[in-house]
């Protein structure tokens, strides 16, 4: 606090007492500005400067013109102050009577016996109002009290760990849940105050008594290395605790919670997912519960790959426990399908989801579950251009052990594919092509089915011709370049090179010019065939 020096009469400066001995200072101020009372300080830096001046009376005038220029009483005051401010041993060399006179003089004139340091640096707070500063200081006091209480808590916890006993009652020290909850609240309050007072962010985990026994391991970076890692705040803290518990190989509910915290902030963090899985398996937690949790996370982070990796791991561990129970397998398959439908509704072509779906069919043997085919049909009905759904349909039907020979590739004829199934799929593809003739997916599908069934391409010639009118003539119309492409192959299959060449030429010239290079190559193949 500034000394209670008596300053000049100034309006509003009512927290100070008045002082009659300020003429030299006032004179000096008046020389630098128009004759007016000294400005009233409004910020703590201004007030501090004023207090500093008051604690150094006559200083500026003396510096300017020398002590001899001052009025006589001021000169006396200067001398008195000089002695008064001497260190005690030096001052004590004065005879006792002189000392008494000195103090009387200092007292009568209310001279400030300590001089404040000039240019005290308040930082940003220098510009604050008194009220604001007072408010800040009061909060600082609250924080100090809280820190004291928190220290008591930590000491008690240490004592509990050591098996210590209360010095008064002699009872063993045990922290109650109430005390822990109270401490948690206290730390929250402390964190809020530290942030407000000093701008210091306290980590969530640092503020949680549950984590007191873990010493976080911050990232060590190789000196000057490229791509050094820099973290921000809360995330950095969480990761440093993650490292610490991973080193200890701790698997516990709080670790599981920690992984969730990190995943919320950064679901792409690969290591944290692995550690989460390790926790689940080590604690033998319910996998269906974890899947339930994962479903929600998956819906929030549609493009994330780690989520599907995690799901695979869970299923690989879960499947053996229900493999012998057909009902459980069916029920699980159904709940998975339901979830997949939900997520595909958000992102109908998500590659991870579709890959997982085919994995699931194979793993759980869900080939003949009617809902699987129905749901694919619904998806194709909703978007006939969904290539993922078409691809899945092909897999579902032609990789089904009932319709296929083991080891026969997807690209090969398979005698085990039933004729009725092949017929049905050819019709299905035709029906969908009719809806959008320029859609690649069903055309690719149709070719795939024909190969699978060992059918000639010519078996669909009538259908294909339906998309093409007057080829090579003035009234030429082609509703689908894919149809024209297939027609070229049909002609080649029949040995009609001329017609095949015409189809390819019209593709290169008009109907699919961007791939002219490809059509040229196809024409060359005709010649060499």
């Amino acid at each position, binding site marked *: 606090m500034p000394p209670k020096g008596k300053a000049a009469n100034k309006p509003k400066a009512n927290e100070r007492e008045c002082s009659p001995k300020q003429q030299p200072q006032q004179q000096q101020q008046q020389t630098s500005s128009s004759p007016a009372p000294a400005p009233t300080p409004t910020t703590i830096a201004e007030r501090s400067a004023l207090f500093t001046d008051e604690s150094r009376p006559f200083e500026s005038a003396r510096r300017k013109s020398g002590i001899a220029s001052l009025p006589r009483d001021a000169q006396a005051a200067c001398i008195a102050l000089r002695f008064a401010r001497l260190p005690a041993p030096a001052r004590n060399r004065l005879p006792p009577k002189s000392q008494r006179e000195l103090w009387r003089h200092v007292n009568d004139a209310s001279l400030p016996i300590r001089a404040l340091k000039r240019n005290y640096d308040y930082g940003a707070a220098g510009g604050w109002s008194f009220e604001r500063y007072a408010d800040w200081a009061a909060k600082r006091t609250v924080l100090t009290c809280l820190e004291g209480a928190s220290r008591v808590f930590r000491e008690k916890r240490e004592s509990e760990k050591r098996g210590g006993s209360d010095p008064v009652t002699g009872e063993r020290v045990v922290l109650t849940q109430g005390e822990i909850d109270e401490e948690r609240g206290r730390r929250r309050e402390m964190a809020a105050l530290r942030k407000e007072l000093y701008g210091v962010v306290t980590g969530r985990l640092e503020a949680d008594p549950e984590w007191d026994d873990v010493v976080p391991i911050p*990232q*060590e*970076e*190789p000196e*000057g*290395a*490229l*791509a*050094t*890692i*820099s973290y*921000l705040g809360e*995330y950095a803290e969480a*990761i440093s605790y993650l*490292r610490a518990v991973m080193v200890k190989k701790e698997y516990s509910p709080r670790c599981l919670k920690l992984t969730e915290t990190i995943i919320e902030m*950064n679901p*792409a*963090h*690969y*290591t944290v997912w*692995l550690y989460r899985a390790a926790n689940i398996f080590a604690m033998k937690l319910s996998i269906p519960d974890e899947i339930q949790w994962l479903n929600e996370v998956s819906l929030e982070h549609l493009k994330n790959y780690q989520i599907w*990796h995690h799901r*695979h*791991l869970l299923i690989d561990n879960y499947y053996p426990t229900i493999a012998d129970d057909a009902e459980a397998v069916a029920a699980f398959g159904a709940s998975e399908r339901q979830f997949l439908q939900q997520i595909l509704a958000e992102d109908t*072509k998500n*590659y991870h989801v*579709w*890959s997982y779906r*085919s*994995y699931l*069919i*194979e793993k759980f043997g869900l080939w003949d579950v009617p809902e699987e085919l129905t749901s694919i049909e619904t998806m194709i009905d909703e978007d006939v*251009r*969904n*290539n*993922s759904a078409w*691809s*899945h349909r*092909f*897999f579902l039907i*032609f*990789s089904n052990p009932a319709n296929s020979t083991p080891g026969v*590739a*997807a*690209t090969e004829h398979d005698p085990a594919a039933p004729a009725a199934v092949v017929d049905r799929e050819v019709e299905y593809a035709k029906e969908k092509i009719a809806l959008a003739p320029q859609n*690649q*997916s069903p055309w*690719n*599908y149709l*070719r*795939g*089915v024909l*190969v*699978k069934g060992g059918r000639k391409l010519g078996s669909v010639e009538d259908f294909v011709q339906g998309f093409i009118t007057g080829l090579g003539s003035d009234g030429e119309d082609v509703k689908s370049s894919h149809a024209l492409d297939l027609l070229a192959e049909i002609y080649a299959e029949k040995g009609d090179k001329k017609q095949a060449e015409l189809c390819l030429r019209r593709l290169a010239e008009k109907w699919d010019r*961007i*791939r*002219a*290079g*490809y059509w040229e*190559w196809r024409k060359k193949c005709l010649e060499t065939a």
Partner: protein
Amino acid sequence: MSENAANLPEELQLITEAHVKYIQSLDTRKDDYEYWLTEHLRLNGLYWGLTALHILGHPGALPRDETIDFVLSCQHENGGFGAAPGHDAHMLSTVSAVQILAMVDAFDELQARGKGNGRAQVGSYIADLQNRQTGTFAGDEWGEHDTRFLYGALNALSLLGLLHLVDVDKAVEHIAACANFDGGYGSGPGAESHAAQIFTCVAALSIAGRKDLIDIDRLGRWLSERQVGRGGLNGRPEKKEDSCYSWWVLSSLEMIGKTHWIDRDSLVAFILSCQDLQGGGIADRPGDMVDVWHTVFSITGLSLLGYPGLQPVDAVYCLPKSTVQRVLG
């Protein structure tokens, strides 16, 4: 380049200097939220950036010593590399580490300063991830299998001269089982054909010397169908075009000798239109935010298209041809 490309408007030229600056700046953005969110890709990111710089003809734009130090700081005792220090070892980051070290010619540093017995340690980490029954590779000790990992394994092992550590025939069998009815390949048997997965399968077969297993006509046809209206390529039928498929589709076409089945000029124009003319870098589509992934795969794509001034890229390894020649001889 043909006349069409030469007649492109001036703003549709490759702004090499700006791309170099953009890549150099990536490591200085440590206070970006984005930066730490992508930490699990740090080593891959370094590979992408460095490859782009090499192809742009500025191989020295990132400091070599620091590059090597960072790569080695990501290595684990078992020989594998994590994405960043403190991250678990993973196949994909291990492959990036090997590719980076190959590019900066630092296998001797790996031998001298790497964990265990240098190259061989890395080789054994990768080899241990192979499932000897199925031939597939997992991404890590936890076991998920994907053709990306299989390709990565063959890529890194062949660069290290350690392909004999794994059962290549079994791996090839697995890839053959991933072929789809439409001629493409997916991430596993039965998974939808996808241009990036096709790249991994075709490149793996190339390394294994088994391109004879590819139905070139059918695959080439599917790949060439990836080109859509504006000249850009998509990754699957009926999806939007995206500049990164310039690499996945083109490199696959290149490996089967069918790059001429697509229209080069319109693809070049599409890629160039994805550039950020102010800040450098290339986006997935014109006007979108740029990132290093789309930048590198656009630039390697342009290299395959013979864009003037670019270094030739190897379609199998996605490394400068000069690197592959130096390493494989």
